[in-house]
Structure formats: structure tokens, C-alpha cells
């Protein structure tokens, strides 16, 4: 199958008028919705999505149909949230989906909301995407005017309201319970699970939160069938995936490729390899929170959930950061630790304090003021954070630290100074 054939999600990327309803409809847009509302029951939609093997594209990779089926059938009120709070460093695919093709996501949202029997859907767009909030709102208005939203959609008796909600600058709201809490008008701090949102979420009612890329795939799946979707990708990772690629390669951008594509091929054919004078050193393949791989490791991976897990990392959000030989790994880690320290919501002590410590110690390393035991200290801080918090932000900070230290230890060790010029060991606040 030629690679051109796999543009399920990205068919209108780069098209200046791709956001218009007329353009979307001319390409078969809203046909899936007509099909679903004309003759399918919500559970039948869930079955098709289950069969397709679609997995959550926000980072966790949880099977979408299974998630939907957790909503109690007896629920009197269900809410559906689209997570467009895209803020994982290295990730910019949802922005493309909403910028070039907002109606695809809107149609996917309507079908998904119908499947879980929701009558109110939110599209939560990160606040920094100011222009995009306006664009999505305009498309939602168009969909209302065309009768795809509101009461009795296409005469089916199904009602759905849709609200475009603008975030206000908090990475933590990308976590699903943080996102729900944010829309209730409180701080977007995550809640402990269980209960899972599918059982008790927004205002205590069953709530499904799906990533933009996940719902955007739903119209195609409904129109072409689960088997056709499984025609792309691998047995365990079916379908296509959007990769956001940044760094000094010849062609950065957002690429849609079938899951299971060898990285080597993608890197050579799509990205055009490194820019002149640069050489591949490392790759953070799934957004800044997943473990970094060396060039050698990533070059032997295929781009799917299982292969990347085997290599010791994760597919995550598909935010692929290409790191050249010229990059200073100590400096990059310090840049990342500044981010997690800045974005920790402060709710859990291990994260609030730990991210601060990680930032301070990596800053010290960068300044050449670190002593030998600071490397062990970094690892000890990680041990005090991983798995000990309500949400995965602490783990997200720990994974880069551990993997940078494991794979590029030499660069870190070279920053250690045992001389008088160095500062004293960073004091670990444990009764010292």
C-alpha cells in the first residue's frame, strides 16, 4: 500500500480552506454521522470502535471502545470532553487537526458522544491557542447552523450541545481529571482514581475524556469499517498515528503514518534525515515525558506501542523530538526540569518538592557547581517521586531524568567538579 493512501486524519492538512464546512462535506464529511444516526444504536457504535482497535492518542494508549463501555448504561446524564489542551513539549498535532480540519473532530465528537449517550460535549482548547479557539468556535457555529448540533440532530431524536472551552495556561489540565476539574470552575488539579471519570467525572456524572486525534479517527472508522482501519498498522497497534516532529531534521512537521513503520525508514524518507552538519544523537519519541533513546536504539525501533515499549520508552503523544550530536544533554535536561517544576500543580508533596529539587540540581550541574554525589541525589529524588502522586506528572519528570542519566551518564559525569571551585553537596532535606 502506498504511503499516500494512509491519510485518514490528515487529508486536508495544509489546505488553506480545509476548515470550511463546505470543503469538509465535499470530501464526504458528516456522512458518517448520517449513517450512525440513521440506523445505529449507541452500543453498536461502541462495538465498531472496539473492533477497530483504536487506542487513545493523547499519551496513555488506552483502548477507546473499552473506555466508552465503562459508562454505566443506567446513567441519567453523561458528559463528553475532547482534550485539546495539547501541551506536552514536542507535540503539535492536535493543533493541526483543529486548524486545518475542525469539522472532522466535531463530527467525531458528535458520534462519540452519541455512543456514550452524552448530551453535552466540551472541546477544551489550550488557552495559548487563542486563534484556534476562535476557529473551532466558528466551525461549531457552522455545525449548529447545518443541523449537526443542537436538538433532534438530522431528525434522529438525538440532542447534543457543544461548548468550546478555552484553557488558561496550565499543563496539568491535560490530565483528564485535571481537565474536568478545570471546567467545573476550580483549579485544574487532578483527582485520585478510582473513581474513574467514566463512572464519576464532571459534576459527579459519568464523563469520557478523549484526545482530539482519537475522536478525529471515529468518522473514518464508522464510514469505512473496523476491518479497513485494521488494514493499517499492526495487530496490536492498528491504524495510523500522527507524529509531530521537531528538531534539526530536514523536514519537520506533522506526519500521518501507519503504526509499525520502521523509524529508520520514516527518518530517511519522510524527515529527509538530519540537516547538513548535524548528526543524530538521541530521540525523545513520544513527547518530553517519555524516556530518551540513543540514536542506535531508535534506529532499530518500529513506531508502534509494543516496539517502543520493548525499547524502554513509550509512544506517548507522538511528539518526536530529534536531538543532534551538538546538543548538550545536561542543558536539555535542565530545560525540561524547569518545565516540570513550573507546571507541577503543587497538590502532591513528592511532585511539588521533587520537581523543584530536580530543577535545582540540574541547574547546579549545568553551572559546573555539582559534586559527585549530586548524580546519586538526582536518582534518590526520582525514587521519592515515581508512582507516589495522584497524577503522572511526577513520573513524567522522573522518566527523562532516569533515562538521560542512564544513557548519557558520561556527559553528566563530565560536569562534576571535585575542586574547591565546586559548591558543597546539595543538602537533602531529610533531617540533616
Amino acid at each position, binding site marked *: 500500500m502506498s504511503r499516500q493512501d494512509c491519510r485518514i486524519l490528515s487529508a486536508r492538512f495544509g489546505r488553506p480552506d480545509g476548515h470550511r464546512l463546505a470543503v469538509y462535506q465535499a470530501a464526504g464529511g458528516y456522512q458518517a454521522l448520517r449513517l450512525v444516526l440513521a440506523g445505529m444504536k449507541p452500543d453498536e457504535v461502541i462495538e465498531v470502535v472496539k473492533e477497530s482497535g483504536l487506542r487513545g492518542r493523547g499519551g496513555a494508549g488506552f483502548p477507546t471502545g473499552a473506555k466508552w463501555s465503562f459508562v454505566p448504561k443506567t446513567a441519567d446524564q453523561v458528559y463528553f470532553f475532547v482534550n485539546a489542551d495539547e501541551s*506536552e513539549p514536542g507535540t*503539535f498535532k492536535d493543533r493541526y487537526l483543529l486548524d486545518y480540519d475542525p469539522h472532522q473532530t466535531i463530527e467525531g465528537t458528535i458520534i462519540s458522544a452519541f455512543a456514550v449517550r452524552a448530551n*453535552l460535549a466540551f472541546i477544551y482548547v489550550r488557552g495559548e491557542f487563542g486563534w484556534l*479557539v476562535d476557529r473551532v468556535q466558528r466551525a461549531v457555529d457552522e455545525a449548529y447552523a447545518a443541523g449537526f448540533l443542537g436538538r433532534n440532530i438530522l431528525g434522529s431524536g438525538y440532542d447534543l450541545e457543544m461548548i468550546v472551552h478555552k484553557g*488558561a*495556561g496550565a499543563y496539568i489540565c491535560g490530565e483528564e481529571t485535571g481537565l474536568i476539574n478545570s471546567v*467545573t*470552575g476550580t483549579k485544574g488539579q487532578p483527582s485520585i482514581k478510582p473513581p474513574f471519570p467514566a463512572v464519576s467525572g464532571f459534576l459527579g456524572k459519568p464523563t469520557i475524556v478523549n484526545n482530539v486525534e482519537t475522536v478525529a479517527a471515529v468518522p473514518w472508522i464508522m464510514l469505512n469499517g473496523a476491518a479497513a482501519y485494521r488494514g493499517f498498522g499492526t495487530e496490536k497497534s492498528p491504524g495510523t498515528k500522527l507524529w509531530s516532529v521537531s528538531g534539526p531534521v530536514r523536514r519537520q512537521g506533522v506526519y500521518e503514518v501507519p503504526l509499525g513503520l520502521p523509524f529508520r525508514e520514516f527518518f530517511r524518507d519522510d524527515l529527509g534525515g538530519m540537516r547538513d552538519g548535524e548528526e543524530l544523537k538521541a530521540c525523545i519519541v513520544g513527547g518530553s515525558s517519555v524516556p530518551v533513546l540513543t540514536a542506535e536504539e531508535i534506529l532499530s525501533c518500529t513506531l508502534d506501542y509494543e516496539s517502543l515499549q520493548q525499547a524502554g520508552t513509550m509512544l506517548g503523544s507522538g511528539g518526536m523530538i530529534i536531538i543532534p550530536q551538538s546538543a548538550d544533554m545536561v542543558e536539555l535536561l535542565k530545560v525540561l526540569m524547569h518545565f516540570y517544576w513550573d*507546571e507541577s500543580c503543587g497538590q502532591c508533596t513528592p511532585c511539588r518538592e521533587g520537581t523543584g529539587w530536580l530543577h535545582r540540581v540540574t541547574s547546579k550541574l549545568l553551572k559546573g557547581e555539582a559534586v559527585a554525589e549530586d548524580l546519586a541525589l538526582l536518582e534518590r529524588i526520582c525514587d521519592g517521586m515515581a508512582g507516589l502522586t495522584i497524577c503522572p506528572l511526577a513520573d513524567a519528570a522522573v522518566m527523562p531524568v532516569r533515562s538521560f542519566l542512564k544513557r548519557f551518564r558520561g556527559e553528566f559525569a563530565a560536569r562534576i567538579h571535585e575542586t574547591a571551585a565546586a559548591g558543597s553537596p546539595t543538602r537533602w532535606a531529610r533531617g540533616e
Partner: protein
Amino acid sequence: MEKPVIATDLELTDRSRQRIAALCARYPTRQSALMPCLWVIQDEHGWVPAAAVPYLVDALGVSEARVHELLTFYTMFRTEKPAKYVLQVCRNISCHLLGAREVIAHLEKRLGIRLGETTPDGRFALAGVECLGACGHGPVLQLGKHFYEQLTPARVDAILESLRRDVVPRADTDRLFEEDR
């Protein structure tokens, strides 16, 4: 204890007041409309004046603490009048790899201020921010609702030169058609 005096000096246009009323009706609870209501106020003023707090307490039936909680938790809400042009430059990993440091250094030199500072005439503020979701287009700068991407020192000069004449150059994310405006 005496009930606090409700301040009424928040200047809002009728349109903004109507938008707030509409949001309260549209969201499932009035409290859940707090965030979009703060946006309505900030969109009109450029920041959220202190008088907005009692106004929202009254309009939404939320506590004063709740409003402050949101204003301080979310970095995009401003509780002080900002500079005329707030230039927010991403310094996260991808932009860093693509030359954000040089762009920031250049901005600092041209504006004569450091990150986090405002020019004495109150026209320009320079801020370092975390990932803006423009990673393949870095280095990136945000001004208002829009992004300027793939920055170089020369492009920075062109943008600043234009802003000094109070002409906001067309941003890379501004792909609206003329008929859409």
C-alpha cells in the same frame, strides 16, 4: 461580621455583561462558567481588574476565594495591567534546539530589558514561557492570540520595527481569509 461591600466599579460593556449572562445560562452550573467569564473580562480590559472579583462573586454565586484561586492558578490570567505588547518566547526543548536562546538574547538586546521585564515606557514586556505547541515551527513567539514562528534575529527586528509603529504584523497562525474577518 459585616457583609463586605460589593464593589460596582467594574467597567464592562453591555456586550460583555450579556456574554457573561449567556455563559451562566449555557454552562451546566454557574460556577462552571467562571473560567470563560474571566476570559470575557480579560478580553475587554487586557487584564482582570480587582473590581471583577466582587462582580463575579455576585453574578456567579461563587466565593471570593474561588475567583482568586483561578486567577492565581492559571498563568494566562493577568491581575495587573500588562505592557502594550507582551512578547512571550518559548524556551522549551524543541525551540531550544532550534535556536530560542539566540532569539531571546537578541530580543533582550534590542529591547534593552531582560526576560521578565518591561520597558520603562510600558510598551514592551518580554517573558519566557513553556511549550506553546509550535515545536516544529520554532523558535516561536506569542503576541496576543497569535504566534510568530521560525524566528531569526532578522525576523525579530522586522516584528519589533513594525510594533514600534503600532502596526501588528500578520502572524503565521493568522490564516483567516479576508471574507472571514
